[in-house]
Each structure stands twice: as structure tokens, then as C-alpha cells.
């Protein structure tokens, strides 16, 4: 494993499989125990550096670090010296001076974790940077697919919706193809990034044609906060063409699953009855996120300090 986890491409097939296997072992080891805590990272400090709002990712990383007995510092830009104008670099150096072994960073600027990794001695884990990458989300999605379907090799995955702004889509396309899955991106042309032709994925504009052929449908959130131009005429039209409702769910093969990284816009990209159906892995994904992040922290921090 590399020292940092900045993007899905940092993981080759062996590394990615090691993370998933480790997560599975941690899951099995902790299942049904009263004491869900391991002493592995005692005395290590993990800083959660969040420049952007987050519920599940921040809590998930915090819980993962705490379950491994690391000390956790939570930092959010709101209410810190960032509002006084402190730069990312100065903030990072301050945290390092206090002895952090790993920094988990979320930032609205794509590439911020890469910059950070050149300034600090500890490990940097990208918890989402702008519209770039969110590698631990891709790992937990791959883990969820593997535990539901039993395999990743040859699994057909449709990633549907706002691919342009989605760091989840970027990381998933990379990681899933590394692990042997076949990815099809489904989106209106306006919500596909330039150069998508060079990604290891097929592209389609027609959700109804793709759905019967896939094992996994991964719905992406329509990111209203990044919608700075008119990418589609109306929410209703988007929902009609690219939303997953009960009728569309009906054409899926029998054991196909429906995923969503959250937070969901119910009624927009996914209908409530789909989100709450037995095919949906949305709640499972959250639980798996903790195990996968424990595996990542263990593999990055467990070894010899640099």
C-alpha cells in the first residue's frame, strides 16, 4: 500500500482486494460482540479535517478511528481559524505540530488532498475533494457489491445521474474496473464530463435500455449545490428520464441491487419505494463504510511510522 489514499488509482488490484478482505475480517471479528473496539491504533492520532459539510463520511471515519482506539480530532472549517483566513497549509502544519499520524480531509477544491500530502509527514486520506475523487466511498461500494453478489469480476454496474459533478462516480469507475467489474455510465450528455470517452467505462444516455442488463444500479445524487448552469430543463424531466422509480426497478434482473451513496433526494433521482425496497443496499453501505474505513486506517497506520 502507498502511504496516502488520495484517489482510487492509488490502489492496484492486490491492494484493493487486501482492503476489502481486511474489512471483511474486521466485520466478522466484530460481529455480535459486546465490545466493538480493538486496541490496534492505540496512541495514534487521526485528524478529521472537513472543509465541506458531511454527515456520514465524517461520522464514519470518526467511528472507524475510535473503534481502532485511535485518538480523533474533529476539525470543521466552520468555527475554526479558517474563518479568520488561515490557509489549508497553515492549518495542516498546525495539526501536524500537534502530532497527527493521519489526516482525513474533505475539501471543496479538487486536488486539495494531493497538496496536503506534500506538506505533512503522516498519511493523508481523501474523504472527498471537489468533483474529483472519494476513494473510500468506492471501496465501501465495492465491498457492498461483493458481499451481496459474492463477486466483483464481471459484475455489470450502471452508474446513473450527475457523473459530471460526482467524485463518487469517478472513484467508482476507476476502482470497479481495477477489480474487474464492467461499468456503464448513464447520464444526460450535459452531465457527462469532457473526456469521458477515455474512462474505463461504457456510456449510455438511455436508462431504460441499460437497466435489464445490469447486476448493480448505482444512483448518484443530483448535486444542487454544484449546479451552476442549466444542465437539464427541469427536475421533473430529469426524474422522468433518469430517476429510478418502481416501474424501472421492475425491469431489473431478480438479484440486481440498487445503491446510492447518500444523501438521497427522494423523488428526484430515486423514488422512496425503491430506496426502501429489499434491493436497496443504502443502509448497508453506511454500515460497511465503517468496516472499510477501519481497514484503510489499519493498513495505512498499523505499520512502522515513517
Amino acid at each position, binding site marked *: *500500500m502507498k502511504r496516502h489514499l488520495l484517489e482510487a488509482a492509488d490502489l492496484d488490484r492486490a491492494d484493493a482486494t*487486501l482492503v476489502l*478482505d*481486511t474489512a471483511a*475480517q*474486521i466485520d*466478522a*471479528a466484530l460481529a455480535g*460482540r*459486546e*465490545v466493538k*473496539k*480493538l*486496541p*490496534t491504533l492505540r496512541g495514534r492520532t487521526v485528524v478529521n479535517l472537513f472543509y465541506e459539510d458531511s454527515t456520514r463520511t465524517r461520522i464514519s471515519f470518526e467511528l472507524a478511528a475510535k473503534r*481502532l482506539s485511535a485518538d480523533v480530532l474533529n476539525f470543521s472549517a466552520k468555527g475554526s481559524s479558517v474563518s479568520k483566513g488561515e490557509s489549508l497549509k497553515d492549518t495542516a502544519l498546525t495539526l501536524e505540530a500537534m502530532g497527527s499520524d493521519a489526516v482525513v480531509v474533505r475539501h471543496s477544491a479538487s486536488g486539495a488532498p494531493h497538496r496536503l500530502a506534500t506538506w505533512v509527514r503522516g498519511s493523508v486520506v481523501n474523504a472527498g475533494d471537489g468533483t474529483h475523487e472519494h476513494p473510500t466511498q468506492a471501496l465501501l461500494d465495492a465491498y457492498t457489491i461483493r458481499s451481496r453478489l459474492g463477486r466483483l469480476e464481471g459484475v455489470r454496474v450502471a452508474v446513473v445521474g450527475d457523473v459530471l459533478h460526482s467524485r463518487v462516480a469517478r472513484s467508482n469507475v476507476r476502482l470497479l474496473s481495477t477489480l474487474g467489474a464492467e461499468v456503464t455510465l448513464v447520464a444526460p450528455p450535459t452531465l457527462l464530463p469532457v473526456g469521458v470517452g477515455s474512462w474505463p467505462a461504457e456510456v449510455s444516455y438511455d436508462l431504460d435500455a441499460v437497466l435489464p442488463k445490469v447486476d448493480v444500479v448505482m444512483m448518484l445524487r443530483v448535486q444542487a449545490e454544484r449546479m451552476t448552469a442549466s444542465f437539464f430543463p427541469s427536475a421533473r424531466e430529469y426524474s422522468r428520464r433518469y430517476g429510478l422509480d418502481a416501474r424501472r426497478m421492475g425491469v431489473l434482473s431478480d438479484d440486481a441491487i440498487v445503491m446510492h451513496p447518500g444523501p438521497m433526494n427522494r423523488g428526484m433521482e430515486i423514488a422512496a419505494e425503491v430506496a426502501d425496497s429489499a434491493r436497496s443496499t443504502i443502509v448497508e453501505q453506511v454500515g460497511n463504510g465503517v468496516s472499510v474505513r477501519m481497514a484503510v486506517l*489499519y*493498513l495505512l497506520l*498499523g*505499520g*512502522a*511510522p515513517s
Partner: protein
Amino acid sequence: MAGSSPAAPVSPPGALLSAADVARVVDRMAHQLIERCGGGGRAGDDRPTLADLVLVGIPTRGAPLARRLAARVEAFSGTPVDVGTVDITLYRDDLRMRGVRALEDTVLPDRGIDGRLVVLVDDVLYSGRSVRAALDALRDLGRPRAVQLAVLVDRGHRELPIRADYVGKNVPTSRSQSVRVHLTEVDGADEVLVTEAQR
């Protein structure tokens, strides 16, 4: 090879225990387990019974060893014995020195370990640090009535106040030597070797 029966496994020179020795040692340890547990269950006898016993192997080689011991105890006593494994990787105190490694299975019997006699099983007892890690792991998994330790080879050089309750073979060694236990399930053959470590 004249004179030796074709079925007899051949150990390389320098083997401390041959396959046949390993089998004999495991049988003896199984008898000792039965002896310790056998009397329980009768009125006025509060010793544990074989039904209370759980053999918990420490991966990698403690796990198949625990399964073998359980099979022999069942063969000699007619009572099936619960088996489990507990991976100690996340409980080790030397991660910083030795780096991360892949995790192995932790599997406990359905009845759990609460109130039962847990016998930890490992291949070699050396510093005692693996056993300490296993004790820490057990504490998080439940509250056994008692914990004992069974090892195939005790090579000395303890760094912690830990001793084994069942020992297959005591082997005085120097720290420069290395003791390797090979088991068919993992290594394709049964034998115990003592070699001078290459430095």
C-alpha cells in the same frame, strides 16, 4: 530407503519431531485434556466437563492444531468438542515494528465462550506475546470460566509471566535458533524443525 515401510513419512535430518511424533504428541495432549475435564459433571465435582471445553486456535497454525486436538478428544472420549479461532493481529503490540499483515479468521462456536473453559492452542510458545494478545482478544469476546494454554512446542525465552498448561514438547533453544512447526493443513507435511536462523 530399504527397510522403511513405504507409507512412513520421511523427515529431513535435523527434524525435532517427525510426522509420527507430531501425531503421538497430539494424542497425548488430547488425553491430558480429557483427564482434566473428564471428572466433571458428577455430583460434588465442580471441574469443567468436555461439553464446557472450547479449543481456540491462534492462526495460522494454532487453528488446524485446535481442530486436530478436538478430533482426537472426540475419538478418545466420544464427546464432540467445540472449536474456534481467534485472530490476534489487531491486538499485537509489535505492529509498529513489524508492519501490517493480512488478517485471519476469528470464529467462535455458536454457544460462545461465556462461562466455558477456553483452551488457547498455538504451535510454538516463545516470548508469550502472542498469548498476551490472544488473552486481550478473548476479553473482548466474552468471559470464559477459565483460560488455559496448549502448545505443541515450548521453546523458552519468555518475556511475559505466561506458561502453558499442556505442552507437546519442551525444547531448550537459543535465541539465535528458529523453531518451525509445519502442519499438513498449511505446509503440506507434519514436522517440527529447529534451524539456525540466517542472519
